[in-house]
């Protein structure tokens, strides 16, 4: 066989074509199971679409108008914002502290890392049950400890004022393991020579952290903030399982937008109205993510 001299660029073009061909399959999949339903939801939100009715009348923006006056939606929106504002900074701060400490220890390193990662791989439903017993006002060990410290026992999940924070605690505890792993990877990517150079220049530990560690962790932090925010905005499973008979309760104090959508759509079959809420949630997530990417991403010269 005669070898034909390859023209420059042919190989590359062929590789590109192969790549596109392979990408086509997942793209089709995404199109069918993700994008098309998303746009259908947009359309659905303009109808009074009750799954059980034969007639699904077009109502224009009526669903959105109802939303503006829907107290429960307002509450769910506020709660979701609170979860995010409490949860994201807390899990990033704790995750960073733990990762820095775990990065230093040498003995039983694997064991410690496994211990901190365990909550992340624990099924959410099981973790929610354990949390309920831990924070049970009656029998919970948390209240027992509080009483040893002469602090009055608290109502936690059964109080409209404390339930949200207690729920956020569970989510933070569960996400922490993953957060620690992200930071460990980020820390490992920082060349040791920077620290050595800093040491020679007489930098203190604090200076090394603020001038080297934190700036170089920026990509990790941005990634964590963006993915963390999205996961809090979609919070659902923990909330459902922490108060199963009054989901989102007591008095709607732990209700999230995602749970509200679910209840409207699959508890009360108001698909049109639920779609309107979905569209709003989608717009919010999109806007926040774009803002975060714009303001948090900074380039540091290395």
């Amino acid at each position, binding site marked *: 066989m005669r070898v034909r001299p390859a023209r420059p660029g042919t190989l590359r073009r062929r590789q590109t074509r192969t790549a596109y061909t392979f990408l086509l399959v997942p793209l089709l999949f995404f199109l069918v199971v993700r994008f098309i339903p998303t746009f259908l939801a947009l359309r659905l939100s303009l109808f009074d679409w009750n799954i059980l009715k034969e007639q699904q009348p077009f109502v224009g923006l009526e669903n959105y108008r109802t939303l503006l006056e829907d107290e429960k939606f307002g509450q769910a929106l506020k709660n979701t914002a609170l979860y995010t504002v409490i949860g994201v900074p807390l899990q990033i701060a704790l995750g960073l502290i733990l990762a820095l400490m775990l990065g230093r220890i040498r003995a039983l390193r694997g064991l410690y890392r496994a211990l901190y990662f365990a909550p992340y791989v624990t099924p959410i439903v099981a973790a929610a049950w354990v949390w309920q017993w831990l924070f049970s006002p*009656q029998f919970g060990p948390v209240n027992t400890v509080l009483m040893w410290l002469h602090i009055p026992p608290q109502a936690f999940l059964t109080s409209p004022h404390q339930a949200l924070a207690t729920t956020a605690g569970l989510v933070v505890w569960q996400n922490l393991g993953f957060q620690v792993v992200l930071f460990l990877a980020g820390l490992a990517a920082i060349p040791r020579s920077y620290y050595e150079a800093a040491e020679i220049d007489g930098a203190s530990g604090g200076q090394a952290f603020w001038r080297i560690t934190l700036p170089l962790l920026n990509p990790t932090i941005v990634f964590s903030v963006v993915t963390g925010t999205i996961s809090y905005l979609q919070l659902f499973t923990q909330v459902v399982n922490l108060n199963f008979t*009054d989901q989102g309760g007591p008095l709607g104090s732990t209700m999230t937008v995602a749970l509200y959508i679910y209840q409207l759509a699959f508890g009360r079959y108001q698909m049109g109205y639920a779609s309107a809420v979905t569209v709003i949630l989608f717009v919010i997530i999109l806007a926040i993510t774009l803002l975060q990417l714009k303001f948090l991403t900074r380039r540091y010269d290395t």
Partner: protein
Amino acid sequence: MKKLLTLALSPLALSLTFAAAAPVTITYWQYDYASKVDTMNKLIQKFEAQNPDIKVKQETFPYDAYNQKVATSVPAGQGPDVVNLFYGWLPQYVDSGYLQALPRADFPVKQIESSFVPMIQTSKMNGQYYALPTSVRTLALFYNKDLLKQAGVLTPPRTWEDFIAAAQKVVKGAPPRFSVLGFGIQPDGQDYHVVREVLVRQFGGSPYSKDGKQVTYDSDAGVKAMTFYTDLYSKYKLGTPNFFPGNNSYRDAFMAGKVGMIIDGSFAIGTIQKGAKFNWGVVPLPVFKGNGVRSNFGSYWVNGITKNAKGDKLAASVKFLKFLTSEDTQRTWLQAVGEIPASKKLSNDPSLRRDPVYGPFVYALPFAHSTLFVDEAGQRKAWVDAINSVILQGGSPANAVKKAATDEQKILNGYYK
């Protein structure tokens, strides 16, 4: 390859032979509950023996997802021919045209009303019945004999006054740390039904207008009912909601021997019989000393025929439904599943009325009211939130009743518009 082909063709061949023999196959759906599924399988065998030309296929789904499963099968145009539904979901399914009215020739309205207990009239819409139950459920007071005895209460309470006195003797600890509850209060358990359908009536009111389109509990009686119920928590401190974490907090805590009394339905009998390792008993729901008005909340699961059943399938479904609601089946159901027969005659049976466990539930049948729900999930939420606004936030009972009435009326208006 050949093997594969045979495999692929065999269901076809199978269905062809069936078509040749021409038996009609109908599908029946109910939720997954071991004793119900087993009993239904036996009943189906019996039915098929009586009707060799009909085959019944039972399909079951988890309880929590059951209504969703049925609802999502409606727009898909799939699903069962005969379906088991909670009566409170009926308006939505009738409205959607999913259920067929029961043929008058096979199920005459008069005959239904003379042979079934009165609460089943909530299955009648537009003058026609759309579904019928095999069994019904009412509420009663379960009490822990041992705990009451230890506290010096020798006879279980028959009046609310005695109920409070007994519970006060049993309760140990103080809010928020109780060790034993006098009353396993749980607004989102059965209690919100007690406030709506029992206490409102006992205070001389009525919760809904006769056609069920208007709430009428935003009244003196409604406020009194709400005040009385929330006082059990705030004033008398008989117990606390969510004593045990979990889905059936009050019942689990009762079965663990940590609660003196709970209000629960006859559907809980089986679970409590299995779970409670102490002496326990059942008495009818208390009344007030002053007037002695009795009331109860009745509920039931019905079997109806869907729009999927046409022609031969419809005829087979009618036969199957007749079989399911027959007195024979009701008797089997009572013995095997432990649910009260829906027939007046059977539930009037002296041995059932005298039964120490079933008696108090059967006793309540003549005056048990079942609410005509149009959006069970939404209406429940309105009530649970109203009660919680009093016991968790210290709101006034009058405002709570007003809020519940506004919210629930909005839901009713949305349905009846």
